[in-house]
């Protein structure tokens, strides 16, 4: 177990080094930050001086190692846009993104698993057909369009829910939460659905096909032959066996939820790290972009590690083989 964790942490460092390298290679194509940093009145000489001072003329490997050396000390520099320290900026924006990601992941898992089971058990019913066909919308429509459709329906036409922002946030000192106010919760509904819809559909379809697979197995037939109730068959014998693929996909999807919150956050003006990143790209704010990409890389690695470890708790066979190896 310890070995696996250490092994994974080592891999994580490699992945992060690689992410940083790729992002530095990409930055050269994003544009020149000096354009945005200086007013249109700046002379060519002043521009050249600023480029030099920012180290933009250094070879890419020098810039890369300079960044790494600072990053290991958690010094990501100051944002070009607004001049605030990057670490502080990201820390102030992270709660908004994590609350949104968590809410939409919960929405996706709860609705996905239950609707998946329902549609597997009640094959061919009217409700099942309705769920299955309407779920195609979730996978086929792009996120921004779903967001705008929801805004149009629930904000403009029905006037039920706010179209943008995070509502009232309560400052807990180290964390600004939208969970504790009515307007905060209302503001969460549309972005969470928008962000989670694709994942929900995916989880629902996966649960359904796994469930159909499992229900054909001999031990289910045996359980039925023993006269167990439907509830016991579905939830105590079938469900645990479909959880491994669902957790794998669900876990990986949580990473994408955090990473792809960018689009949802832009549509809903959700003040999280995704919006921060988009603005950084427009502004060619290299310190913020590189720190964000490292953060997302780290989130993916961490989630994968947690997913791997969770197998041991869910699947007894894995636990046993691990014990045998060590013995």
């Amino acid at each position, binding site marked *: 177990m310890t070995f696996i964790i250490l092994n994974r942490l080592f891999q994580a460092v490699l992945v992060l080094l690689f992410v940083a390298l790729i992002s530095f290679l990409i930055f050269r194509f994003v*544009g020149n930050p000096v354009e945005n940093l200086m007013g249109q009145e700046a002379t060519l000489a002043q521009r050249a001086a600023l480029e030099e*001072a920012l180290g933009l003329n250094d070879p890419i490997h020098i810039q890369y190692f300079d960044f790494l050396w600072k990053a290991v000390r958690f010094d990501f520099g100051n944002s070009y846009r607004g001049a605030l320290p990057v670490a502080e900026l990201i820390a102030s924006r992270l709660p908004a993104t994590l609350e949104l990601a968590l809410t939409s992941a919960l929405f996706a898992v709860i609705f996905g698993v239950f609707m998946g089971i329902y549609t597997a058990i009640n094959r061919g019913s009217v409700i099942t057909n309705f769920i299955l066909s309407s779920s195609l919308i979730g996978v086929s429509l792009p996120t921004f369009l779903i967001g705008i459709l929801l805004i149009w329906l629930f904000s403009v036409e029905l006037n039920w829910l706010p179209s943008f922002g995070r509502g009232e946030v309560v400052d807990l000192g180290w964390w600004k939460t939208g969970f504790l106010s009515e307007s905060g919760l209302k503001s969460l509904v549309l972005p969470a659905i928008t962000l989670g819809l694709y994942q929900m559909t995916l989880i629902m379809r996966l649960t359904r096909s796994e469930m159909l697979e499992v229900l054909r197995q001999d031990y289910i037939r045996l359980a039925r032959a023993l006269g167990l109730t439907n509830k016991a068959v579905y939830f105590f014998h079938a469900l645990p066996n479909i959880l491994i693929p669902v957790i794998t996909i669900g876990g990986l999807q949580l990473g994408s939820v955090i990473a792809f919150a960018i689009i949802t956050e832009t549509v809903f*003006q959700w003040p999280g790290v995704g919006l921060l990143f988009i603005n950084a790209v427009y502004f060619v704010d290299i310190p913020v972009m590189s720190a964000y990409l490292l953060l997302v890389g780290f989130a993916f690695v961490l989630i994968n590690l947690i997913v791997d470890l969770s197998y041991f708790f869910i699947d007894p066979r894995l636990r046993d083989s691990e014990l045998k190896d060590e013995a």
Partner: protein
Amino acid sequence: MIKHLLISAAIVTASFATASAETVRWARAGDSITMDPHAQNEGPTHTLSHQIYDTLLHRDMAGAIIPSLATEWAALSDNPNVWRFTLRKGVVFHDGSDFTSEDVVFSLNRAMADGSEMKELLSSVKEVRAVDSHIVDVETNGANPLLINNLTNMFMMDKGWSEDNKVTTPHDVAKGETNFATMNTNGTGAFMLVSRAVDEKTILKANPNYWGKDIYPNQVTEIIYTPIQSSATRVAALLSGEVDIIQDVPVQDLGRVSASADLQLATAAQNRVIFFGLDTVNGPTANLKVRQAMNIAINRDSIKKIVMRGQSDPTGVIMPPFVNGWTEALNQHPQYDLNKAKALMKDAGYSNGFDIVLNCPNDRYVNDESICQAAVGMMAKIGITVTLDAKPKAQHFPIAKGGEADFYMLGWGVPTFDSHYIFNYLVHSQTNDRGSWNPTGYSNADVDAMIVSLESETDLTKRDDTIAKIWAAVQVAQMYLPIHNQVLNWGMRKDIMFDVQPEDTPLFQFLTFK
């Protein structure tokens, strides 16, 4: 005009003396970058600063220069190199300290310091001196008749507050600095900063000790400013009543806003001209006949009608109508004439046309990429095969400015409202300190000399003659193909009365309610 405005403002104030507290929820596409008023020279940043900080003089909602913290200004009769400003008395900063000439000296010097993005506008200033507590002299290197035009975004800070909080210079991005003034303010303006979360929400409340209380309507007691980047969401927020006024209404949604029973649209010409630039040194566009052919092959009226949905003013000169030097004759755009254009191409020896790349931004001007797409089709009609290369502005500007582009799009606003600002950056030969936005290769020593002479010519008639001469040279050379001036649209609640300001800078002390 000003008198009329002040009188009507006074009447409105009197009749609304009992009006209740009014909050205005305001949204636009981008947030201010920093609250430090000298650290950035950018529209949304200045707009928010204008609510909190004042300038010596500024532009009203119609674009005319009016007194603000200075009540009078004039060049000294015995020395045209010195501008004398008489300051308004009884003005206090939000923290209660008095506004005096030492704050002006401090602020102008701060705006000229390293790290300031405003310093270019003050490059002619030699020294700023306090004559007494409410008179300030600004001495320039040689006479500078344009100095006051450069002060309309030059904000005044409190010397004592800046020293106490160690913000005596703007934060210098190159040095990775950050400072207290980035998130905190102490101005003399109509509104005080209550709270600010970047990209999220900024709350301002009316300044109870505002010096302009009896001058402007001041009916707004609170401003809640929320940037909303997505244009569809911004319009939705206005339609659903979550905000009261938005800037940057996308042209495709204008109909929806004006059709709503509770909303109205205010429209006015913007101080920004859109045009194409051409390489005058290399390639086919070095031939004047080719440039002339391209100029009349652009159908400006159909760009206005189809691409801009009527929201533009086609023009024949790269100068918005507010600018000193503008004439109706220059503004007259050339007749669209395909046959003449083809004949010119033939004369130039390009009857079979040629291939060229058009560099275009896709996130800077209203429908920028669509205008370029339209131009591709129009050029094809005279045999020019255009490959469109549309990029975000951060990538487009280095290409457009670096001289790598043969054919590119650019837009230009004129904050000083004077032709010199266009000439200095777009017409003067490209040198280390001038012509930074002129990659066309156009270089004319006589024109250069005339441009420099504008900076110190105090005889305004003579100066205007020189401006007209330079424009004549520019119109002949045709290194730029003007397209149109942009039009500004603000969407707002029907009971709000608010003129669209040509620099896209709403000043909320002017806002009134029906």
